[in-house]
Protein backbone atom coordinates (compact mmCIF):
# COMPACT_ATOMS: atom_id res chain seq x y z
CA UNK A 1 0.00 0.00 0.00
CA UNK A 2 2.70 2.48 1.05
CA UNK A 3 4.72 1.41 -1.98
CA UNK A 4 1.75 2.07 -4.26
CA UNK A 5 1.22 5.53 -2.80
CA UNK A 6 4.92 6.28 -3.19
CA UNK A 7 4.95 5.17 -6.82
CA UNK A 8 1.85 7.27 -7.55
CA UNK A 9 3.54 10.23 -5.86
CA UNK A 10 6.73 9.84 -7.87
CA UNK A 11 4.73 9.54 -11.09
CA UNK A 12 2.99 12.74 -10.07
CA UNK A 13 6.30 14.51 -9.55
CA UNK A 14 7.51 13.35 -12.99
CA UNK A 15 4.29 14.65 -14.56
CA UNK A 16 4.73 17.97 -12.77
CA UNK A 17 8.28 18.25 -14.09
CA UNK A 18 7.12 17.56 -17.65
CA UNK A 19 4.28 20.07 -17.35
CA UNK A 20 6.76 22.59 -16.05
CA UNK A 21 9.23 22.02 -18.88
CA UNK A 22 6.56 22.19 -21.60
CA UNK A 23 5.12 25.41 -20.19
CA UNK A 24 8.56 26.94 -19.93
CA UNK A 25 9.38 26.11 -23.54
CA UNK A 26 6.10 27.64 -24.67
CA UNK A 27 6.68 30.78 -22.61
CA UNK A 28 10.15 31.24 -24.08
CA UNK A 29 9.05 30.34 -27.60
CA UNK A 30 6.18 32.80 -27.91
CA UNK A 31 7.19 36.11 -29.47
CA UNK A 32 7.13 39.34 -27.55
CA UNK A 33 8.32 39.92 -24.02
CA UNK A 34 6.79 41.02 -20.77
CA UNK A 35 8.51 44.39 -20.72
CA UNK A 36 6.91 45.65 -23.89
CA UNK A 37 3.30 45.28 -22.82
CA UNK A 38 3.34 48.67 -21.10
CA UNK A 39 2.34 51.90 -22.77
CA UNK A 40 5.73 53.51 -22.90
CA UNK A 41 8.25 52.18 -25.33
CA UNK A 42 11.36 51.06 -23.51
CA UNK A 43 14.79 52.01 -24.76
CA UNK A 44 16.79 49.02 -26.03
CA UNK A 45 19.47 49.50 -23.37
CA UNK A 46 16.96 49.36 -20.55
CA UNK A 47 15.31 46.32 -22.02
CA UNK A 48 18.67 44.65 -22.47
CA UNK A 49 19.55 45.37 -18.85
CA UNK A 50 16.19 44.03 -17.68
CA UNK A 51 16.58 40.87 -19.73
CA UNK A 52 20.08 40.39 -18.32
CA UNK A 53 18.77 40.99 -14.81
CA UNK A 54 16.30 38.13 -15.22
CA UNK A 55 18.76 35.94 -17.18
CA UNK A 56 16.47 36.08 -20.19
CA UNK A 57 19.38 36.54 -22.57
CA UNK A 58 20.45 33.00 -21.90
CA UNK A 59 17.61 30.49 -22.03
CA UNK A 60 19.48 27.82 -20.09
CA UNK A 61 20.35 30.17 -17.24
CA UNK A 62 16.76 31.43 -17.37
CA UNK A 63 15.42 27.89 -17.16
CA UNK A 64 17.90 26.97 -14.43
CA UNK A 65 16.98 29.94 -12.31
CA UNK A 66 13.26 29.30 -12.64
CA UNK A 67 13.65 25.58 -12.02
CA UNK A 68 15.71 26.22 -8.90
CA UNK A 69 13.05 28.66 -7.79
CA UNK A 70 10.19 26.30 -8.53
CA UNK A 71 11.79 23.51 -6.50
CA UNK A 72 11.87 25.89 -3.55
CA UNK A 73 8.26 26.84 -4.48
CA UNK A 74 9.41 30.37 -5.22
CA UNK A 75 8.23 31.68 -8.57
CA UNK A 76 10.15 34.93 -8.44
CA UNK A 77 8.94 38.45 -9.13
CA UNK A 78 5.99 39.20 -11.36
CA UNK A 79 6.86 41.22 -14.45
CA UNK A 80 3.50 42.93 -14.71
CA UNK A 81 2.59 43.57 -11.07
CA UNK A 82 5.80 45.33 -10.12
CA UNK A 83 5.42 45.38 -6.36
CA UNK A 84 4.36 41.77 -6.01
CA UNK A 85 6.11 38.45 -6.15
CA UNK A 86 4.28 35.65 -7.92
CA UNK A 87 4.01 33.82 -4.62
CA UNK A 88 2.21 36.76 -3.03
CA UNK A 89 -0.19 36.99 -5.96
CA UNK A 90 -0.98 33.28 -5.86
CA UNK A 91 -1.24 33.29 -2.08
CA UNK A 92 -3.75 36.13 -2.14
CA UNK A 93 -5.81 34.88 -5.10
CA UNK A 94 -5.86 31.11 -4.63
CA UNK A 95 -7.91 31.04 -1.38
CA UNK A 96 -10.57 33.23 -2.98
CA UNK A 97 -10.82 30.97 -6.03
CA UNK A 98 -10.80 27.88 -3.86
CA UNK A 99 -13.64 29.18 -1.72
CA UNK A 100 -15.83 30.00 -4.72
CA UNK A 101 -14.80 26.80 -6.51
CA UNK A 102 -15.48 24.55 -3.54
CA UNK A 103 -18.89 26.12 -3.08
CA UNK A 104 -19.59 25.68 -6.80
CA UNK A 105 -18.63 21.99 -6.73
CA UNK A 106 -20.75 21.43 -3.62
CA UNK A 107 -23.74 23.08 -5.30
CA UNK A 108 -23.09 21.10 -8.48
CA UNK A 109 -23.07 17.76 -6.64
CA UNK A 110 -26.03 18.61 -4.44
CA UNK A 111 -28.16 19.75 -7.37
CA UNK A 112 -26.80 17.67 -10.25
CA UNK A 113 -26.93 14.26 -8.57
CA UNK A 114 -30.60 14.39 -7.47
CA UNK A 115 -31.61 15.76 -10.89
CA UNK A 116 -29.77 12.93 -12.62
CA UNK A 117 -31.23 10.25 -10.33
CA UNK A 118 -34.77 11.61 -10.62
CA UNK A 119 -34.70 11.87 -14.37
CA UNK A 120 -33.36 8.32 -14.63
CA UNK A 121 -36.03 6.92 -12.32
CA UNK A 122 -38.82 8.87 -14.02
CA UNK A 123 -37.42 8.08 -17.41
CA UNK A 124 -39.23 9.54 -20.47
CA UNK A 125 -41.59 11.59 -18.30
CA UNK A 126 -42.05 15.33 -18.68
CA UNK A 127 -39.65 15.73 -15.76
CA UNK A 128 -36.98 13.86 -17.67
CA UNK A 129 -37.59 15.87 -20.83
CA UNK A 130 -37.51 19.20 -18.97
CA UNK A 131 -34.32 18.31 -17.17
CA UNK A 132 -32.74 17.19 -20.41
CA UNK A 133 -33.62 20.49 -22.04
CA UNK A 134 -32.37 22.55 -19.07
CA UNK A 135 -29.13 20.59 -18.95
CA UNK A 136 -28.58 21.16 -22.66
CA UNK A 137 -29.14 24.89 -22.30
CA UNK A 138 -26.86 24.92 -19.25
CA UNK A 139 -24.06 23.36 -21.26
CA UNK A 140 -24.67 25.64 -24.23
CA UNK A 141 -24.69 29.03 -22.50
CA UNK A 142 -21.36 30.83 -22.24
CA UNK A 143 -20.54 31.50 -18.58
CA UNK A 144 -20.05 35.20 -19.16
CA UNK A 145 -23.60 35.51 -20.49
CA UNK A 146 -25.15 33.59 -17.59
CA UNK A 147 -23.10 35.59 -15.12
CA UNK A 148 -24.09 38.91 -16.61
CA UNK A 149 -27.73 37.89 -16.71
CA UNK A 150 -27.71 36.82 -13.05
CA UNK A 151 -25.89 39.99 -12.08
CA UNK A 152 -28.35 42.19 -13.95
CA UNK A 153 -31.42 40.46 -12.55
CA UNK A 154 -30.48 39.69 -8.95
CA UNK A 155 -27.99 42.42 -8.14
CA UNK A 156 -28.93 45.40 -10.29
CA UNK A 157 -32.71 45.07 -10.42
CA UNK A 158 -33.72 43.03 -7.36
CA UNK A 159 -30.92 44.29 -5.07
CA UNK A 160 -30.61 40.87 -3.44
CA UNK A 161 -26.86 40.86 -3.78
CA UNK A 162 -24.19 43.56 -4.04
CA UNK A 163 -23.24 44.47 -7.61
CA UNK A 164 -19.47 44.71 -7.15
CA UNK A 165 -16.77 44.38 -4.55
CA UNK A 166 -15.62 41.44 -2.51
CA UNK A 167 -15.32 40.45 1.12
CA UNK A 168 -18.74 39.70 2.57
CA UNK A 169 -20.78 36.51 2.46
CA UNK A 170 -23.33 38.20 0.20
CA UNK A 171 -20.71 38.34 -2.54
CA UNK A 172 -20.38 34.56 -2.67
CA UNK A 173 -23.65 33.06 -3.99
CA UNK A 174 -23.85 34.59 -7.49
CA UNK A 175 -20.32 33.68 -8.66
CA UNK A 176 -20.59 30.23 -7.07
CA UNK A 177 -23.92 29.52 -8.76
CA UNK A 178 -22.67 30.77 -12.13
CA UNK A 179 -19.54 28.67 -11.87
CA UNK A 180 -21.54 25.61 -10.85
CA UNK A 181 -23.98 25.62 -13.80
CA UNK A 182 -21.85 23.75 -16.38
CA UNK A 183 -20.76 21.31 -13.67
CA UNK A 184 -24.39 20.71 -12.67
CA UNK A 185 -25.20 19.95 -16.28
CA UNK A 186 -22.39 17.42 -16.67
CA UNK A 187 -22.96 15.76 -13.32
CA UNK A 188 -26.69 15.41 -14.03
CA UNK A 189 -25.93 13.80 -17.40
CA UNK A 190 -23.36 11.43 -15.96
CA UNK A 191 -25.60 10.47 -13.05
CA UNK A 192 -28.55 9.86 -15.35
CA UNK A 193 -26.60 7.55 -17.65
CA UNK A 194 -25.01 5.73 -14.73
CA UNK A 195 -28.41 5.27 -13.07
CA UNK A 196 -30.06 4.02 -16.27
CA UNK A 197 -27.25 1.57 -16.68
CA UNK A 198 -27.42 0.40 -13.07
CA UNK A 199 -31.23 0.21 -12.96
CA UNK A 200 -31.18 -2.07 -15.98
CA UNK A 201 -28.80 -4.60 -14.44
CA UNK A 202 -29.56 -7.94 -12.85
CA UNK A 203 -28.79 -7.15 -9.23
CA UNK A 204 -31.46 -4.45 -9.27
CA UNK A 205 -34.03 -6.92 -10.57
CA UNK A 206 -33.05 -9.20 -7.69
CA UNK A 207 -33.36 -6.36 -5.20
CA UNK A 208 -36.80 -5.42 -6.52
CA UNK A 209 -37.87 -9.07 -6.60
CA UNK A 210 -37.00 -9.64 -2.97
CA UNK A 211 -39.35 -6.81 -2.06
CA UNK A 212 -37.07 -3.91 -1.15
CA UNK A 213 -38.65 -0.48 -1.28
CA UNK A 214 -38.00 1.69 -4.30
CA UNK A 215 -36.05 4.16 -2.20
CA UNK A 216 -33.64 1.54 -0.93
CA UNK A 217 -33.19 0.06 -4.40
CA UNK A 218 -32.54 3.42 -5.99
CA UNK A 219 -30.32 5.02 -3.40
CA UNK A 220 -28.58 2.07 -1.72
CA UNK A 221 -28.15 -0.30 -4.64
CA UNK A 222 -28.27 1.54 -7.95
CA UNK A 223 -26.82 4.86 -6.86
CA UNK A 224 -23.65 3.35 -5.37
CA UNK A 225 -22.73 2.01 -8.79
CA UNK A 226 -24.02 5.00 -10.73
CA UNK A 227 -21.98 7.46 -8.70
CA UNK A 228 -18.62 6.03 -9.81
CA UNK A 229 -18.43 7.83 -13.20
CA UNK A 230 -19.45 11.06 -11.46
CA UNK A 231 -16.66 10.53 -8.98
CA UNK A 232 -14.02 10.20 -11.67
CA UNK A 233 -15.36 13.32 -13.36
CA UNK A 234 -15.13 15.18 -10.05
CA UNK A 235 -11.31 15.00 -10.00
CA UNK A 236 -10.56 17.20 -13.01
CA UNK A 237 -13.74 19.23 -12.45
CA UNK A 238 -12.73 20.18 -8.91
CA UNK A 239 -9.22 21.09 -10.00
CA UNK A 240 -10.70 23.35 -12.64
CA UNK A 241 -13.24 24.91 -10.28
CA UNK A 242 -10.71 25.50 -7.48
CA UNK A 243 -8.31 27.39 -9.74
CA UNK A 244 -11.04 29.78 -10.75
CA UNK A 245 -12.74 30.82 -13.93
CA UNK A 246 -11.71 33.96 -15.75
CA UNK A 247 -15.20 34.71 -17.05
CA UNK A 248 -16.88 34.40 -13.65
CA UNK A 249 -14.20 36.43 -11.91
CA UNK A 250 -14.29 39.16 -14.51
CA UNK A 251 -18.08 39.47 -14.53
CA UNK A 252 -18.44 39.53 -10.74
CA UNK A 253 -15.17 41.25 -9.90
CA UNK A 254 -13.86 38.35 -7.82
CA UNK A 255 -10.14 38.72 -7.00
CA UNK A 256 -9.33 35.08 -7.77
CA UNK A 257 -6.66 33.08 -9.56
CA UNK A 258 -8.61 32.56 -12.79
CA UNK A 259 -7.91 36.05 -14.04
CA UNK A 260 -4.18 35.63 -13.37
CA UNK A 261 -4.09 32.53 -15.61
CA UNK A 262 -5.35 34.62 -18.50
CA UNK A 263 -3.63 37.90 -17.75
CA UNK A 264 -0.30 36.22 -17.14
CA UNK A 265 -0.54 34.48 -20.49
CA UNK A 266 -1.56 37.68 -22.26
CA UNK A 267 1.28 39.63 -20.62
CA UNK A 268 3.85 36.82 -20.99
CA UNK A 269 4.46 37.05 -17.26
CA UNK A 270 6.68 33.96 -17.11
CA UNK A 271 6.81 33.43 -13.36
CA UNK A 272 3.10 33.86 -12.90
CA UNK A 273 2.28 31.54 -15.83
CA UNK A 274 4.55 28.83 -14.44
CA UNK A 275 3.20 29.31 -10.93
CA UNK A 276 -0.43 29.09 -12.06
CA UNK A 277 0.21 26.05 -14.23
CA UNK A 278 2.05 24.24 -11.45
CA UNK A 279 -0.72 25.02 -8.95
CA UNK A 280 -3.30 23.68 -11.39
CA UNK A 281 -1.31 20.55 -12.28
CA UNK A 282 -0.49 19.79 -8.63
CA UNK A 283 -4.14 20.20 -7.64
CA UNK A 284 -5.18 17.95 -10.52
CA UNK A 285 -2.71 15.22 -9.53
CA UNK A 286 -3.56 15.35 -5.83
CA UNK A 287 -7.30 15.37 -6.50
CA UNK A 288 -7.06 12.47 -8.93
CA UNK A 289 -5.16 10.48 -6.31
CA UNK A 290 -7.80 11.32 -3.70
CA UNK A 291 -10.57 10.34 -6.08
CA UNK A 292 -8.86 7.02 -6.85
CA UNK A 293 -8.57 6.32 -3.13
CA UNK A 294 -12.27 7.13 -2.68
CA UNK A 295 -13.07 4.94 -5.66
CA UNK A 296 -11.38 1.98 -4.05
CA UNK A 297 -13.19 2.69 -0.81
CA UNK A 298 -16.62 2.84 -2.47
CA UNK A 299 -16.08 0.00 -4.92
CA UNK A 300 -14.07 -2.79 -3.25
CA UNK A 301 -13.71 -4.62 -6.58
CA UNK A 302 -10.99 -2.24 -7.71
CA UNK A 303 -9.07 -1.76 -4.47
CA UNK A 304 -5.93 -3.08 -6.16
CA UNK A 305 -5.83 -0.24 -8.60
CA UNK A 306 -4.68 2.57 -6.33
Amino acid at each position, binding site marked *: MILRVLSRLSAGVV*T*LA*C*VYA*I*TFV*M*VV*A*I*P*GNPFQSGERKMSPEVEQALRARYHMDNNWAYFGEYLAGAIRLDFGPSYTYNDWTCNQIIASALPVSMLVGLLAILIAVMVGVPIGVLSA*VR*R*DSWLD*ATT*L*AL*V*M*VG*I*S*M*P*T*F*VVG*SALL*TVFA*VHLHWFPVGGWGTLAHLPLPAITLSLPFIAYIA*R*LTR*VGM*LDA*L*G*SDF*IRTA*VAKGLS*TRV*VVWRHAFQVAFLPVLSYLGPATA*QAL*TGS*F*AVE*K*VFGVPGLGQH*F*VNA*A*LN*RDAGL*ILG*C*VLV*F*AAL*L*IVLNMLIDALYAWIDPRISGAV
Partner: protein
Amino acid sequence: MTRPGDTRRSGVHRALVVLSVTVLAALLVTSAATLPFTLNWYDVQELGEAVRHAPTSDPTVSFDSFEPSVSPGMLAPAARYLHAASSWLGHDDLGRSMLFRLLPGFLISLGIGLASAAIAVCLGTFWGATAALVGGNTDRVMMRIVDVLFGLPYILMVILLKIALTRPLSALLGGQTAVADLIVLFVAIGAVSWLTMARVVRGQVLSLRAQPFIEAARAAGASRLRILCRHLLPNLVGPVIVYATLVIPQAIMQESFLSFLGIGVTQPTPSLGRLAADGVEAVNTFVGYWWLIVYPCGVLVVTLVAMNVLGDALRDRLDPRSQMTSLV
Protein backbone atom coordinates in the same frame (compact mmCIF):
# COMPACT_ATOMS: atom_id res chain seq x y z
CA MET B 1 -39.90 1.53 -12.63
CA THR B 2 -37.47 0.51 -15.33
CA ARG B 3 -37.49 -1.46 -18.48
CA PRO B 4 -34.21 -3.34 -18.40
CA GLY B 5 -32.38 -3.45 -21.68
CA ASP B 6 -34.72 -0.96 -23.27
CA THR B 7 -32.57 1.76 -24.73
CA ARG B 8 -34.93 3.02 -27.41
CA ARG B 9 -35.59 6.71 -27.36
CA SER B 10 -39.01 8.08 -26.64
CA GLY B 11 -41.11 9.91 -29.22
CA VAL B 12 -40.22 13.21 -27.54
CA HIS B 13 -36.59 12.54 -28.15
CA ARG B 14 -37.10 11.64 -31.79
CA ALA B 15 -39.08 14.84 -32.30
CA LEU B 16 -36.21 16.75 -30.67
CA VAL B 17 -33.73 15.23 -33.11
CA VAL B 18 -35.91 16.13 -36.10
CA LEU B 19 -36.34 19.66 -34.74
CA SER B 20 -32.57 20.03 -34.27
CA VAL B 21 -31.84 18.93 -37.82
CA THR B 22 -34.49 21.31 -39.15
CA VAL B 23 -33.22 24.27 -37.15
CA LEU B 24 -29.59 23.69 -38.08
CA ALA B 25 -30.46 23.20 -41.74
CA ALA B 26 -32.62 26.33 -41.77
CA LEU B 27 -29.87 28.42 -40.14
CA LEU B 28 -27.27 27.01 -42.51
CA VAL B 29 -29.33 27.57 -45.65
CA THR B 30 -30.38 31.09 -44.65
CA SER B 31 -26.91 32.23 -43.71
CA ALA B 32 -25.25 30.58 -46.71
CA ALA B 33 -27.83 31.93 -49.15
CA THR B 34 -27.55 35.47 -47.86
CA LEU B 35 -23.77 35.33 -47.56
CA PRO B 36 -23.01 37.18 -50.84
CA PHE B 37 -25.17 40.01 -49.54
CA THR B 38 -24.18 39.99 -45.88
CA LEU B 39 -20.47 39.87 -46.69
CA ASN B 40 -20.84 43.37 -48.09
CA TRP B 41 -23.06 44.57 -45.31
CA TYR B 42 -21.90 43.11 -42.00
CA ASP B 43 -19.53 45.99 -41.38
CA VAL B 44 -21.57 48.86 -42.83
CA GLN B 45 -22.34 51.46 -40.20
CA GLU B 46 -25.73 52.95 -40.72
CA LEU B 47 -25.19 56.13 -38.81
CA GLY B 48 -27.70 58.69 -37.68
CA GLU B 49 -30.67 57.56 -35.66
CA ALA B 50 -29.92 53.93 -36.29
CA VAL B 51 -27.20 53.65 -33.68
CA ARG B 52 -28.34 51.04 -31.17
CA HIS B 53 -31.92 51.40 -32.25
CA ALA B 54 -34.24 48.64 -31.17
CA PRO B 55 -35.52 45.93 -33.50
CA THR B 56 -38.27 47.04 -35.84
CA SER B 57 -40.01 45.64 -38.87
CA ASP B 58 -40.60 49.10 -40.30
CA PRO B 59 -38.27 49.32 -43.31
CA THR B 60 -38.42 53.12 -43.44
CA VAL B 61 -36.43 53.34 -40.22
CA SER B 62 -33.36 51.85 -41.77
CA PHE B 63 -33.80 53.68 -45.07
CA ASP B 64 -34.18 57.03 -43.31
CA SER B 65 -31.14 56.45 -41.28
CA PHE B 66 -28.57 55.44 -43.74
CA GLU B 67 -28.20 58.39 -46.04
CA PRO B 68 -24.59 58.97 -45.02
CA SER B 69 -23.38 55.76 -46.58
CA VAL B 70 -25.86 54.51 -49.16
CA SER B 71 -29.30 55.55 -50.34
CA PRO B 72 -31.94 52.99 -51.33
CA GLY B 73 -31.92 54.15 -54.92
CA MET B 74 -28.33 53.00 -55.30
CA LEU B 75 -29.23 49.40 -54.57
CA ALA B 76 -30.43 46.79 -57.03
CA PRO B 77 -34.07 45.82 -56.42
CA ALA B 78 -33.18 42.45 -54.83
CA ALA B 79 -30.62 44.03 -52.55
CA ARG B 80 -33.09 46.76 -51.63
CA TYR B 81 -35.58 44.11 -50.62
CA LEU B 82 -32.93 42.31 -48.55
CA HIS B 83 -31.79 45.52 -47.03
CA ALA B 84 -35.22 46.22 -45.63
CA ALA B 85 -34.41 43.37 -43.26
CA SER B 86 -31.45 45.19 -41.75
CA SER B 87 -33.39 46.53 -38.79
CA TRP B 88 -35.40 43.43 -37.98
CA LEU B 89 -33.02 42.54 -35.16
CA GLY B 90 -31.88 46.05 -34.32
CA HIS B 91 -28.47 47.68 -34.66
CA ASP B 92 -25.37 47.56 -32.50
CA ASP B 93 -23.51 50.48 -30.95
CA LEU B 94 -21.76 51.27 -34.23
CA GLY B 95 -25.05 51.22 -36.16
CA ARG B 96 -24.34 47.86 -37.80
CA SER B 97 -27.28 45.60 -38.52
CA MET B 98 -27.48 42.76 -36.00
CA LEU B 99 -29.14 40.49 -38.55
CA PHE B 100 -26.42 41.03 -41.13
CA ARG B 101 -23.74 40.31 -38.55
CA LEU B 102 -25.54 37.33 -37.08
CA LEU B 103 -25.89 35.47 -40.38
CA PRO B 104 -22.22 35.38 -41.41
CA GLY B 105 -21.32 35.07 -37.71
CA PHE B 106 -23.16 31.76 -37.57
CA LEU B 107 -21.22 30.47 -40.56
CA ILE B 108 -17.91 31.59 -39.11
CA SER B 109 -18.61 29.95 -35.75
CA LEU B 110 -19.70 26.78 -37.50
CA GLY B 111 -16.56 26.86 -39.63
CA ILE B 112 -14.35 27.26 -36.57
CA GLY B 113 -16.13 24.33 -34.91
CA LEU B 114 -15.82 22.06 -37.95
CA ALA B 115 -12.19 22.98 -38.65
CA SER B 116 -11.05 22.47 -35.05
CA ALA B 117 -12.91 19.18 -34.90
CA ALA B 118 -11.19 18.10 -38.13
CA ILE B 119 -7.79 18.95 -36.69
CA ALA B 120 -8.57 17.21 -33.41
CA VAL B 121 -9.80 14.12 -35.28
CA CYS B 122 -6.75 13.89 -37.57
CA LEU B 123 -4.23 14.45 -34.80
CA GLY B 124 -6.03 12.28 -32.28
CA THR B 125 -6.65 9.38 -34.64
CA PHE B 126 -3.08 9.41 -35.87
CA TRP B 127 -1.65 9.58 -32.35
CA GLY B 128 -3.97 7.01 -30.80
CA ALA B 129 -3.80 4.53 -33.68
CA THR B 130 0.00 4.76 -33.87
CA ALA B 131 0.36 4.22 -30.14
CA ALA B 132 -1.93 1.20 -30.19
CA LEU B 133 -0.45 -0.38 -33.33
CA VAL B 134 3.22 0.06 -32.48
CA GLY B 135 2.67 -0.83 -28.85
CA GLY B 136 5.36 -1.48 -26.26
CA ASN B 137 7.47 1.42 -25.05
CA THR B 138 6.37 3.72 -27.87
CA ASP B 139 2.79 3.30 -26.74
CA ARG B 140 3.75 3.96 -23.14
CA VAL B 141 5.67 7.14 -23.98
CA MET B 142 3.00 8.45 -26.36
CA MET B 143 0.20 7.97 -23.87
CA ARG B 144 2.36 9.44 -21.10
CA ILE B 145 2.69 12.56 -23.25
CA VAL B 146 -1.09 12.71 -23.54
CA ASP B 147 -1.35 12.40 -19.75
CA VAL B 148 1.08 15.26 -19.25
CA LEU B 149 -0.72 17.48 -21.76
CA PHE B 150 -3.95 16.75 -19.88
CA GLY B 151 -2.28 18.31 -16.84
CA LEU B 152 -1.92 21.65 -18.61
CA PRO B 153 -4.79 24.10 -18.20
CA TYR B 154 -6.20 24.19 -21.73
CA ILE B 155 -7.27 27.81 -21.78
CA LEU B 156 -3.70 28.86 -21.09
CA MET B 157 -2.49 26.67 -23.93
CA VAL B 158 -5.02 28.14 -26.35
CA ILE B 159 -3.95 31.66 -25.44
CA LEU B 160 -0.24 30.89 -25.73
CA LEU B 161 -0.72 29.09 -29.06
CA LYS B 162 -2.83 31.96 -30.32
CA ILE B 163 -0.20 34.53 -29.37
CA ALA B 164 2.61 32.39 -30.74
CA LEU B 165 1.05 31.66 -34.12
CA THR B 166 -0.83 34.83 -35.06
CA ARG B 167 2.05 37.08 -36.11
CA PRO B 168 4.08 34.58 -38.16
CA LEU B 169 1.00 33.37 -39.97
CA SER B 170 -0.33 36.80 -40.88
CA ALA B 171 3.15 37.64 -42.16
CA LEU B 172 3.06 34.45 -44.19
CA LEU B 173 -0.32 35.32 -45.66
CA GLY B 174 0.87 38.77 -46.65
CA GLY B 175 -0.87 40.82 -43.99
CA GLN B 176 -4.30 39.26 -44.21
CA THR B 177 -4.77 39.48 -40.48
CA ALA B 178 -8.43 38.50 -40.39
CA VAL B 179 -7.84 35.24 -42.27
CA ALA B 180 -4.69 34.46 -40.31
CA ASP B 181 -6.58 35.07 -37.10
CA LEU B 182 -9.34 32.64 -38.03
CA ILE B 183 -6.85 29.94 -39.01
CA VAL B 184 -4.85 30.38 -35.82
CA LEU B 185 -8.04 30.26 -33.81
CA PHE B 186 -9.15 26.86 -35.00
CA VAL B 187 -5.63 25.46 -35.07
CA ALA B 188 -5.19 26.48 -31.43
CA ILE B 189 -8.57 25.08 -30.38
CA GLY B 190 -8.00 21.90 -32.37
CA ALA B 191 -4.55 21.49 -30.89
CA VAL B 192 -5.94 21.31 -27.36
CA SER B 193 -8.96 19.12 -28.19
CA TRP B 194 -7.26 16.05 -29.65
CA LEU B 195 -6.21 14.45 -26.35
CA THR B 196 -9.46 12.67 -25.56
CA MET B 197 -9.68 11.62 -29.21
CA ALA B 198 -6.26 9.97 -28.96
CA ARG B 199 -7.34 8.02 -25.88
CA VAL B 200 -10.62 6.92 -27.45
CA VAL B 201 -8.97 5.78 -30.69
CA ARG B 202 -6.19 3.94 -28.87
CA GLY B 203 -8.69 2.05 -26.74
CA GLN B 204 -10.77 1.20 -29.78
CA VAL B 205 -7.79 -0.04 -31.80
CA LEU B 206 -6.54 -2.13 -28.89
CA SER B 207 -9.91 -3.81 -28.47
CA LEU B 208 -10.36 -4.28 -32.23
CA ARG B 209 -6.92 -5.81 -32.61
CA ALA B 210 -7.78 -8.51 -30.14
CA GLN B 211 -10.92 -9.52 -32.02
CA PRO B 212 -11.19 -12.70 -34.10
CA PHE B 213 -11.88 -11.00 -37.43
CA ILE B 214 -8.51 -9.28 -37.37
CA GLU B 215 -6.84 -12.56 -36.55
CA ALA B 216 -8.80 -14.17 -39.40
CA ALA B 217 -7.62 -11.47 -41.79
CA ARG B 218 -4.05 -12.03 -40.69
CA ALA B 219 -4.44 -15.79 -41.06
CA ALA B 220 -5.79 -15.24 -44.56
CA GLY B 221 -2.52 -13.51 -45.38
CA ALA B 222 -3.62 -9.87 -45.43
CA SER B 223 -0.78 -7.38 -45.16
CA ARG B 224 -0.52 -5.00 -42.21
CA LEU B 225 -1.47 -2.07 -44.41
CA ARG B 226 -4.51 -3.92 -45.71
CA ILE B 227 -5.60 -4.81 -42.19
CA LEU B 228 -5.20 -1.19 -41.16
CA CYS B 229 -7.06 0.28 -44.12
CA ARG B 230 -9.73 -2.34 -44.73
CA HIS B 231 -10.44 -3.64 -41.26
CA LEU B 232 -9.34 -1.22 -38.55
CA LEU B 233 -10.10 2.23 -39.97
CA PRO B 234 -13.71 1.47 -41.05
CA ASN B 235 -14.43 0.30 -37.53
CA LEU B 236 -12.99 3.49 -36.10
CA VAL B 237 -15.34 5.74 -38.04
CA GLY B 238 -18.19 5.38 -35.53
CA PRO B 239 -16.38 6.44 -32.35
CA VAL B 240 -14.44 9.10 -34.22
CA ILE B 241 -17.60 10.74 -35.58
CA VAL B 242 -19.20 10.47 -32.18
CA TYR B 243 -16.32 12.29 -30.55
CA ALA B 244 -16.15 14.83 -33.36
CA THR B 245 -19.77 15.82 -32.69
CA LEU B 246 -18.73 16.56 -29.13
CA VAL B 247 -15.76 18.66 -30.21
CA ILE B 248 -17.69 20.95 -32.58
CA PRO B 249 -19.93 22.57 -29.94
CA GLN B 250 -17.00 22.65 -27.50
CA ALA B 251 -14.88 24.53 -30.03
CA ILE B 252 -17.66 27.04 -30.72
CA MET B 253 -17.95 27.56 -26.97
CA GLN B 254 -14.20 28.07 -26.60
CA GLU B 255 -14.23 30.57 -29.42
CA SER B 256 -16.89 32.55 -27.58
CA PHE B 257 -14.76 32.53 -24.45
CA LEU B 258 -11.71 33.71 -26.41
CA SER B 259 -13.83 36.46 -27.93
CA PHE B 260 -14.83 37.49 -24.42
CA LEU B 261 -11.11 37.76 -23.61
CA GLY B 262 -10.70 39.90 -26.69
CA ILE B 263 -8.48 37.43 -28.54
CA GLY B 264 -11.11 35.64 -30.60
CA VAL B 265 -11.84 36.69 -34.16
CA THR B 266 -10.54 40.18 -34.97
CA GLN B 267 -12.96 43.03 -34.58
CA PRO B 268 -15.01 43.68 -37.69
CA THR B 269 -15.36 39.93 -38.32
CA PRO B 270 -18.50 38.63 -36.61
CA SER B 271 -18.86 35.29 -34.88
CA LEU B 272 -21.55 34.15 -32.49
CA GLY B 273 -19.14 34.37 -29.56
CA ARG B 274 -17.83 37.76 -30.63
CA LEU B 275 -21.38 39.13 -30.92
CA ALA B 276 -22.40 37.69 -27.55
CA ALA B 277 -19.29 39.12 -25.91
CA ASP B 278 -19.93 42.55 -27.47
CA GLY B 279 -23.51 42.34 -26.29
CA VAL B 280 -22.46 41.53 -22.74
CA GLU B 281 -20.17 44.54 -22.73
CA ALA B 282 -22.94 46.82 -23.95
CA VAL B 283 -25.52 45.48 -21.51
CA ASN B 284 -23.16 45.71 -18.54
CA THR B 285 -23.47 49.48 -18.75
CA PHE B 286 -26.96 48.93 -17.27
CA VAL B 287 -28.77 50.24 -20.30
CA GLY B 288 -31.34 47.90 -21.78
CA TYR B 289 -29.89 47.15 -25.20
CA TRP B 290 -31.35 43.71 -24.80
CA TRP B 291 -31.34 42.78 -28.49
CA LEU B 292 -27.55 43.01 -28.55
CA ILE B 293 -27.33 40.06 -26.19
CA VAL B 294 -30.57 38.12 -26.67
CA TYR B 295 -30.23 37.43 -30.40
CA PRO B 296 -26.60 36.28 -30.59
CA CYS B 297 -26.96 34.24 -27.41
CA GLY B 298 -30.22 32.81 -28.66
CA VAL B 299 -28.64 31.64 -31.89
CA LEU B 300 -25.60 30.36 -30.01
CA VAL B 301 -27.67 28.35 -27.54
CA VAL B 302 -30.00 27.00 -30.21
CA THR B 303 -27.03 25.95 -32.35
CA LEU B 304 -25.18 24.26 -29.52
CA VAL B 305 -28.27 22.52 -28.15
CA ALA B 306 -29.17 21.25 -31.63
CA MET B 307 -25.62 19.99 -32.12
CA ASN B 308 -25.57 18.25 -28.77
CA VAL B 309 -28.91 16.57 -29.49
CA LEU B 310 -27.64 15.48 -32.90
CA GLY B 311 -24.40 14.23 -31.41
CA ASP B 312 -26.30 12.12 -28.90
CA ALA B 313 -28.49 10.68 -31.65
CA LEU B 314 -25.43 9.86 -33.74
CA ARG B 315 -23.82 8.25 -30.74
CA ASP B 316 -26.84 6.01 -30.30
CA ARG B 317 -26.51 4.90 -33.89
CA LEU B 318 -22.77 4.61 -34.30
CA ASP B 319 -21.21 3.82 -30.96
CA PRO B 320 -21.24 0.08 -30.39
CA ARG B 321 -21.16 0.65 -26.65
CA SER B 322 -23.74 3.42 -26.67
CA GLN B 323 -25.92 1.63 -24.15
CA MET B 324 -23.11 2.14 -21.68
CA THR B 325 -21.48 5.40 -22.61
CA SER B 326 -24.23 7.56 -24.07
CA LEU B 327 -24.34 10.67 -21.96
CA VAL B 328 -28.03 11.42 -22.13
